[in-house]
């Protein structure tokens, strides 16, 4: 049971530059989304969300059927499908294939699924050079950091940070303009693309009826990773499936708009198997890794199964007031923000980071913007119940449990409730409506002190509502 990372959160909150970076970047993404989904920009965006939700629900409820259909169609187009129970099997497959095929260098396009299994670290450990090619991911790889955000991985880095990282690791002349920095990356990475033997991509969607993967990006690195090397491996969580290519007419319209406010990202690739006879270029071999790694466990719970609908647009992060304060790295896993708060406990077990589902005011901004309509607050509430249940079994969280038992006991007994309220009033006879900045030692309990660390506490009313009400009724009765 990991505790709340109190110090790390505090240091994020007190870093004014970082706070500004998180706040302004997410604000810009929110603003772009708002424009892109406005009625004058697209017809019936809410109808598209409803359709996206219905398709995902159907696909996940029939996951076995669509995965088998996908597999058949990938094989029919000359690709291979590799099923992996967990991270270890996926890593082992890539390592073994690399050795068999004499792969020295791998280029990678952005993929949260490969972040999830720490693929780069394992490949490097196995003696293979692996290069991230998305600009943000490349910066983070050089800095040995994990993504800060699902779609804007280096959101927390300034151009000066990037200048430091490039000069130190690439030994290039210092440049501080993003334009020039991008050119540095283009030069270095172009060489890697041309010489790499293997390209690894993720997949935004798996299309069952086509045996295809879809990659959505802006830079062109996913196109290069999937087209330049002689071998392509796409690594995807098995929940990425949708039944038909035609469903993309729905999903592509909601994904780009929700993520970055783009009607379509610059490049959308629909890839199926290796280069075919007659085609001029493209990979000679195509492998699709279908990874479970805990996903089937999520599937078992009917209420929380919807967590698997996620298409990783990042909108819930941008709109989450908690993410906007604590940033991405204080979440325990690569998936941060509201979606991270609901999937991490389901992947790792609810007792690993029992604080996580409680780190929410349940404001619901996340589900309001979710393009596939995941009811994130509802899943958080259910996880909270699971956690209290698990704690009860382990005998943890005694104080809180006692407090809520007492709460429940008093709230079922109106007379006792009234007495308790009257007692509270008598403790502060002299406050005269002024809010309280401190309390007698006896009352300095942790939750009270938590409140008082940032706020004053309302004084108990001098006369209870009940007393005032009775008086009011008596006065009226006299008429």
């Amino acid at each position, binding site marked *: 049971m990991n505790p709340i990372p109190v110090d790390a959160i505090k240091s994020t909150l007190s870093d004014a530059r970082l706070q500004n970076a998180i706040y302004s*970047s997410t604000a810009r993404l929110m603003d772009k989304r708002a424009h892109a989904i406005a009625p004058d920009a697209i017809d019936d965006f809410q*109808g598209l969300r409803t*359709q996206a939700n219905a398709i995902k629900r159907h696909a996940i409820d*029939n*996951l*076995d*059927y669509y*995965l*088998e259909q996908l597999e058949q*169609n990938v094989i029919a*187009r000359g690709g291979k499908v590799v*099923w992996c*129970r967990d991270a270890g099997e996926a890593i082992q497959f890539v390592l073994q294939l690399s050795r068999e095929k004499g792969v020295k260098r791998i280029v990678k396009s952005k993929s949260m699924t490969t972040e999830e299994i720490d693929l780069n670290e394992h490949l490097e450990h196995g003696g293979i050079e692996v290069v991230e*090619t998305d*600009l943000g991911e490349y910066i983070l790889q050089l800095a040995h950091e994990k993504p800060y955000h699902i779609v*804007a*991985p*280096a959101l927390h880095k300034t*151009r000066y940070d*990037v200048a430091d990282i490039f000069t130190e690791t690439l030994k290039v002349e210092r440049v501080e303009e993003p*334009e020039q920095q991008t050119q540095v*990356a*283009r030069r270095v*990475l*172009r060489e890697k693309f*041309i010489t790499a033997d293997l390209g690894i991509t993720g997949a935004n969607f798996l*299309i069952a009826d*086509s*045996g295809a993967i879809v990659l959505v990006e*802006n*830079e*062109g*690195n996913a*196109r*290069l990773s999937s*087209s*330049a090397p002689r071998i392509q491996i796409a690594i995807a969580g*098995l929940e990425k499936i949708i039944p*038909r*290519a*035609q*469903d*993309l*007419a729905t999903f*592509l319209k909601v994904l780009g708009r929700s993520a970055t406010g783009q*009607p*379509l990202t*610059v*490049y959308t*690739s629909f890839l*199926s*198997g290796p280069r*075919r006879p007659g*085609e*001029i*270029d*493209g990979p000679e071999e*195509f492998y699709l890794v279908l990874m479970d790694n805990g996903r089937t466990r999520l*599937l*078992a719970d009917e209420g929380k199964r919807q967590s698997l609908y996620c298409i990783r647009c990042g909108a819930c992060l941008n709109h989450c007031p908690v993410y906007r304060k604590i940033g991405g790295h204080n979440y325990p896993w690569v998936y941060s923000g509201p979606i991270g708060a609901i999937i991490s406990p389901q992947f790792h077990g609810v007792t690993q980071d029992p604080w996580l589902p409680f780190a929410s005011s349940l404001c619901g901004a996340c589900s309001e913007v979710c393009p596939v309509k995941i009811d994130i607050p509802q899943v958080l509430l259910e996880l909270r119940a699971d956690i209290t249940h698990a704690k009860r079994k382990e005998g943890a969280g005694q104080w809180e449990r006692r407090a809520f038992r007492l709460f429940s006991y008093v709230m079922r007994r109106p007379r006792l409730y009234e007495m308790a309220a009257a007692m509270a009033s008598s403790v502060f006879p002299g406050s005269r409506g002024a809010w309280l900045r401190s309390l007698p030692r006896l009352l300095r309990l942790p939750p009270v002190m938590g409140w008082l660390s940032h706020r004053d506490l309302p004084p108990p009313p001098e006369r209870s509502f009940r007393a005032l009400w009775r008086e009011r009724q008596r006065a009226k009765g006299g008429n």
Partner: protein
Amino acid sequence: MSAREEILTRIRASLGRANSTGAPAGLPPSRIVIPDVPLERRIEKFTAALEKLNGKVHRASSRDDARDYVERLLHGRTAVTSNAPFVAECGVLTLPNVKPGGSDPLPLRGMCATLDAGITSADYALSDTGSLVMLSSNEEARMVSLLPPLHVALVPLDRLLTGLDELYSILPVPSDRTSSMVFITGPSRTADIEQILVRGVHGPGEIHVVLV
């Protein structure tokens, strides 16, 4: 048990069934809505959408006009073309410094990596979003529209569709036609550093579409 069998067994157990149950009922009909938009309006929308992204659109009155536009645009810069017959029909190969890319992948990649521009056609264009739709084939290689800093596409007007819905009704299963279908919507770009927009990351930083 193989990983495949075990995963499928886990899935079925989680979903509360023992065996494969065949094609499931209840798949919502796909949501394909194709509006009736006159050609002139499609051209306007395509132009507005692409220019908003800093792409350029030229409406050519004839194939010769298209060729002249490309000549002015290149202005001495070097270029490689795809094998698309329409590119040749426009006479682009007669221009100075323009070389045919051919069908041999290695020399082609070399040209794409060193020359200034890649000239292609496109299988379709989407007016809603200002996108080109490129299917990999013996006419169009993946690299020509990807490696050079400038991409020029010559597109006959009859390939200009309304949007995604129309495309997916023409190509309900795109992988029956090709291993790679790509939508190109504007120049390559990033906003990964401080959310500042920079064009020309890994793909072309400049894109011109000539509607013929």
